[in-house]
């Protein structure tokens, strides 16, 4: 399970000079939160945002230096929040049956990606920044808001249009994918121009890769082999975390093999021996059929969220992954590393270490 460092200020926090609505309601959920360093406390109502937490109307979402998050709204819209960003869900009204309503968001700083849902199809989405008001219709949009002066740059990646208006009366409309317009402090929106490929790459990078990603991987994968005792009494040992293609294996907790799979077509071979195997797809998050596993390899699978599939050995035997014997399982209840049957077999990138 991934923890977040996204903080929520209280429900009545003002944003960009607009007062929060009187009756906040649930508008969506936190659909993704990156795992980085711990957050900080501002007031008593601050909470660390986690995947699955409800998002409420009037709520402010802030990220720290390495935080990333995605908010999923009830109408299907999503907002990806980059690091050092802040937004408030000003207004959300949605009639599910009629599929009409309005979504209003105030973004005070940071980089965001907005993917329009049902409300956006009608042009009922507005985004306020310190320097501009954006009307988004059926679009996927990147929005950058400078923390210094609120200068705003809008890039339409796809869609019908983005209407930009400023307090001074300036107005522009972006109707072509890949075009950007900028609004400086107290300025008018610039004529839309095609965004450079390099700039697009940089913005996407800010929205998919937090500075703490590498640290997160280190934190979840043990650097050294670990010994764990299964519920059935079997003992597992693991080699160094190995990479088979893009598959990483490690031990976490009690009697579990954590398989992190990054390739949808990646096949994982599990078996009691080199000739008694079952090959299964290891799509991230796939629920592997428990009876098949129990019969073939003497292990049952417990699916988790995110990218992890957890296996729990329930019988004796070896559990091999990708042709390389990694985990000899025996009844020896030794709290240490075992060398029983721990010979590497195939062409894995790492061998079992005694």
């Amino acid at each position, binding site marked *: 399970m991934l923890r977040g460092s996204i903080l929520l200020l209280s429900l009545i926090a003002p944003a960009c000079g607009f007062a929060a609505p009187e009756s906040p309601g649930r508008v969506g959920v936190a659909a993704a939160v990156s795992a980085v360093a711990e957050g900080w406390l501002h007031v008593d109502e601050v909470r660390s945002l986690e995947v699955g937490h409800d998002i409420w109307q009037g709520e402010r979402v802030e990220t720290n230096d390495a935080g990333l998050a995605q908010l999923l709204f009830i109408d299907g819209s999503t907002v990806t929040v980059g690091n050092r960003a802040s937004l408030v869900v000003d207004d959300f009204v949605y009639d599910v049956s009629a599929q009409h309503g309005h979504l209003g968001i105030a973004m005070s700083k940071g980089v965001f990606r907005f*993917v*329009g*849902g049902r409300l956006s199809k009608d042009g009922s989405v507005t985004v306020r920044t310190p320097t501009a008001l954006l009307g988004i219709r*059926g679009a996927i949009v990147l929005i950058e808001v400078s923390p210094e002066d609120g200068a705003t740059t809008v890039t339409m*990646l796809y869609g019908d249009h983005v209407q930009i208006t400023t307090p001074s009366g300036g107005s522009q409309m972006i109707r072509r994918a*890949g075009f950007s317009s900028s609004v400086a402090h107290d300025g008018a929106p610039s004529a839309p121009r095609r965004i450079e490929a390099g700039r697009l790459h940089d913005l996407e990078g800010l929205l*998919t890769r937090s500075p703490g990603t590498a640290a997160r991987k280190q934190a979840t994968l043990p650097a050294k082999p670990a010994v764990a005792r299964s519920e059935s009494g079997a003992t597992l040992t693991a080699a160094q975390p190995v990479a088979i293609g893009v598959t990483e294996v490690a031990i976490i907790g009690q009697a579990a093999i954590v398989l992190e799979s*990054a*390739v949808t077509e990646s096949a994982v071979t599990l078996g009691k021996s080199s000739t008694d195997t079952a090959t299964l797809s290891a799509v991230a*998050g796939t629920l592997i059929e428990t009876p098949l596993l129990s019969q073939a390899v003497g292990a049952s699978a417990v699916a988790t969220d995110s990218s992890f599939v957890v296996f729990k050995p329930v019988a004796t035997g070896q559990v091999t992954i990708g042709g390389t014997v990694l985990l000899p399982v025996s009844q020896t209840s030794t709290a240490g590393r075992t060398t029983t049957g721990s010979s590497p077999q195939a062409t894995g990138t790492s061998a079992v270490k005694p």
Partner: protein
Amino acid sequence: MRMYIYVFLFIFVFFTARSVLAAALETEETPRSVALQQAFSAMMADPGNTRLTILYVDAATAAGDLEGAIGALSRLLLANPDLPAIHLRLAALYHALHSNGMAELHYRQALSLPLDPPQRQEAEHGLIELAASANPISGLVQLGVTRQSNATAGPDSQARIGGTEVTPQGKFAARPDWNSFLYASLNHSLDFDDSAGTRWDTALSLYATLQQHAAYENLTYGKLTSGPTWLVGETPAETLHLYAVAEVLGWGNAPFSTTGGIGAAWETPIDPDITSRLELEALDRSYDNRATYPTATDENGGTAIARYILSYRWQPGDVAIIRLQATDDIAQKSDWRYREWRVVPTMVHNFTGLWGADSSWQFALELQWAWRPYAGPNPTIDPAITRSDRERSAGIQLQLPIAEGLSSRTAASYLQEDSTVENFRYTNWVMATSLQLVF
């Protein structure tokens, strides 16, 4: 004056159809949309569940909600930005939305990661397709043979000359024949890369037939249109194209007519799956007299054409089109002046056949009805009868893939022309087969 009224009626029909269809489609619920809603609800209840997210992505893609699929897939990258399969799916989705910059970004992201051979091929092919789509030149070439039961469009039975019934003979009689034909079209689009989406579009079409026996029916036809296109309205799908038109027609191995004029085409989306297009053309035709037709210049004059085309994509690979066309021909002589009303419904179905990529086989069905009353009698034919034609036709076509860009087409059609003047009553069965190369 009457023509302007007809154009106004067309525009009225256009706006009415647009409103009615948009309202009807808003309340439509299909099995795919129900499945999408269910998948979305499941994902909302457990947004960290990758399996449910992938199921939603699949449902959204099937239902055509590509933006929803993009939003969900982007979330997976927050947990792990180095998922090549996710980058490939995002690239394909952005590619389908014609967001080429984002598609290229994700294809290149995928290529920077460890890939298995099929994934690498998918990414590299995607980049090649993006580069090809940026090519301003496109077109097709079609080469084939046709068999017609009545290649001369000769009357089925008798004809009239000077009010007297005669039996058509020689070139004026109905005659079956084979021909070989060539059709080529070349399109060039110069994008000025401005925010208004301004581009200059030029299209050239060439068509030529070589009859096996009735050489006097050989046809050569060329049409050139060129002019600017702008984005109008609030969506990039709404465009206005103004153009100049030039046509030349050769008949029986000799020049027959030349045409020049101007046109305008306004295309607008009613719904993500419905597009309407209104075309208006004003043309001036000039004919050349010949020994076999010394009064061809009687047909000289202006022509105004209004077309309304409604396209409905009811599911990926399937399109229903209806074309309504009104023509007002103002020839020099009244016996060549006519108005024509034409209705052409067409259905195109792409499906997965015995070979080739998914949905690379295509079946098309087209029907036509036309009514064409003339302004006055032709005294040469019969001074007592004013010509009025009714045309009916039905055709089917099957297109099969052979290789990348190369396909075969087989078509069959039946045309029946009824007329108050016997000279113009005829039927024609047509069978054609051809090879087509698209580039």
